[in-house]
């Protein structure tokens, strides 16, 4: 299926990546090429096949619901691009 410029813009928005206008058409071509190659999956008979979501068939292990780590804001914030005291500074979200 051909991926057009409008689809690239929509997907880039969903992925929260600002793609410059000059990249939209080249990306549409590249993604169309990749998806055309992927289309061959339609040939495979997958009737009644269970999707495989993990390489190992195991049930997710459970552990005690207790705090194992925490109470160390310095470690949590040590890589923050911007901080104020023990808080991350982020752009305003609500008006």
């Amino acid at each position, binding site marked *: 299926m051909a991926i057009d410029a409008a689809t690239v813009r929509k997907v880039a928005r969903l*992925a*929260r990546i*600002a793609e410059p206008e000059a990249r939209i058409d080249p990306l549409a071509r590249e993604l169309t090429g990749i998806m055309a190659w992927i289309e061959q*999956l339609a040939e495979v008979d*997958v009737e009644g096949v*269970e999707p495989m979501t993990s390489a*190992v068939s195991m049930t997710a292990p459970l552990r005690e619901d207790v705090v194992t780590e925490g109470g160390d804001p310095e470690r949590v914030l040590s890589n923050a691009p911007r901080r104020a005291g023990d808080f991350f500074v982020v*752009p305003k*979200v609500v008006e």
Partner: protein
Amino acid sequence: MSGLTDLTLRQALDALGTRKISSEELTGAYIAAIEAARPLNAFVLETPEKALEMARASDHRRASAEAGPLDGVPLGIKDLFCTEGVRTTAGSRILGTFTPTYESTVTSQLWRDGAVMLGKLNLDEFAMGSSNETSAFGPVVSPWRRQGDAAPLTPGGSSGGSAAAVAAGLCLGATATDTGGSIRQPAAFTGTVGIKPTYGRCSRWGVVAFASSLDQAGPIARTVEDAAILLQSMSGHDPKDSTSLNAEVPDFPAFVGKSVKGLRIGVPKEYRVEGMSPEIDALWEQGIAWLRDAGCEIVEVSLPHTRYALPAYYIVAPAEASSNLARYDGMRYGLRVEGGNLTDTYEKSRAAGFGEEVKRRILIGTYVLSAGYYDAYYLRALKVRRRIADDFTEAFGKVDALLTPTAPSAAFALGENAEDPVAMYLNDIFTVTVNLAGLPGMSVPAGLDAQGLPLGLQLIGRPLDEGLLFSLGGAIEKAAGFSPKPARWW
């Protein structure tokens, strides 16, 4: 001093054990080798002071007879493993100067066993690539060159820094990761040994995530035995990774040198792909002959869904990547480019931080997971993945292991496959099936092509059967007698 860096890991451990050499001497020799090899661009961060400090501590442990199984051995660490207090970038601008406050489980086990860290190794950005050209630090240059040709070649990817460093004698071994072939293809391109163990054998905790259902850590080393020694230390159950296998770790090095007589080895007919180099085909035949001579029975098997593995991978891996990489939003760590509002900040930060290949994969992943396409692409790919895994289960009803080439060609020149993403993806044609099925796979150097470049053979085993791969890999290594090293030009 140059003799020190020619030792294998096994030989170095023996020399350290008998106190013929100290870790400080050995580490010093590697630090000098790394400094002299900067044109290879294999290291993105050298940590010589930390290395010498760790080496001296190791020498103290040796003196007081408290040495661990890897004590004093200098290693390189792929820059996808978080290292406490040491910058970890995943080869991406978006992590900037990210400095973890914790240590990945795999590396913490290496330090527990006494190993010494020389520094962090270059890689494709977020391990997405087969040539190391997507790294924000620029590509690694292979220590290998074609005969009479100075054109820079790729060491492969994504673990290109790991493979190049081991091949060039810049470390005794290196950690690496493999999502679609990123340990085995670079190992094949550089004449080194690389093993991707069974999914869940090594903890993923503290390893920067690419595609969580496929990512697996493993070592790149100079010999099969060295790889076994390293994997021994890297493996084991970790409660911090919910997909970590609670399985006993056998004595891997003990499998090297064991007889392979009577084993049944499958040769999958679908791996004879169109356009494969005749040299690769001849190497494969040679490998078959070696194992037959060692007493194995060779059986042709069929893996009928092989040709669908790469297209399925290029849905599953980008889908998981688009979800995993959503965390890079410029709020809590990494690069932030301020915008007019929150969304604008997200979009600008991610646009500036991610490279073109990573963006391309995030966009594909977002597309195949988006409303209206999920069933047609993502769900179908997961069903094809099951078909591929079932092919292996069927084959392993008849044989003990499989033998294939590792990659469809020898190393190519930097820039050669850069224009066409699909051409680059085809590098993983023989390796990606193994990730989809979660099986162990190992690449062993088996010979040189007409231009003097290394070629590798791949062994694939049943789940948790790495030991058998070490026995078979040892048999191939012995028969091949592979010892060439790249002629030093740097």
